[in-house]
């Protein structure tokens, strides 16, 4: 009896859309670098936004005191 392969046995690689683990590994370093750039870009442009100042930037260890607003209670409007 002849044992032969009639066609290649195709097997689907695990993927998300067209991104496979191998492709993702190739992009991973770049994504990390661009992610950091994006975070700092957003930080630069939201720096004057009170919501971000209060919740994010005032909590940065050393630099944070720049965004901590301390007004004498006497000087606040009633």
């Amino acid at each position, binding site marked *: 009896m002849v044992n032969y392969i009639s066609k290649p046995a195709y097997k689907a690689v695990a993927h998300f859309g067209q991104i496979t683990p191998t492709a993702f590994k190739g992009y991973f370093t*770049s994504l990390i*670098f*661009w992610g*950091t*750039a994006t975070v*700092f*870009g957003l*930080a*630069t442009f939201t*720096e004057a936004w009170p919501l971000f100042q209060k919740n994010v930037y005032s909590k940065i260890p050393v*630099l944070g005191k*720049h*965004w901590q607003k301390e007004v*004498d209670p*006497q*000087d606040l409007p009633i």
Partner: protein
Amino acid sequence: MSFYHTVFNTVFKRNSVFLTTIFAGAFVFQAVFDEGVNKWWEARNKGKLWKDVKLTIPGAGEEEDDE
């Protein structure tokens, strides 16, 4: 030569690192510059600022009644 080589390799080689350097530099610089200028301004105008003057005003902080 070596110094420029190091700078090129650490900052300019990858566009993402270059951009991060620019944005991080801008973010940190504006805070440091602002703090520095404020400190200088307050030192230069010491005694003339509201926080110094209000201590010398008698009755400041008491209730004001304008009739």
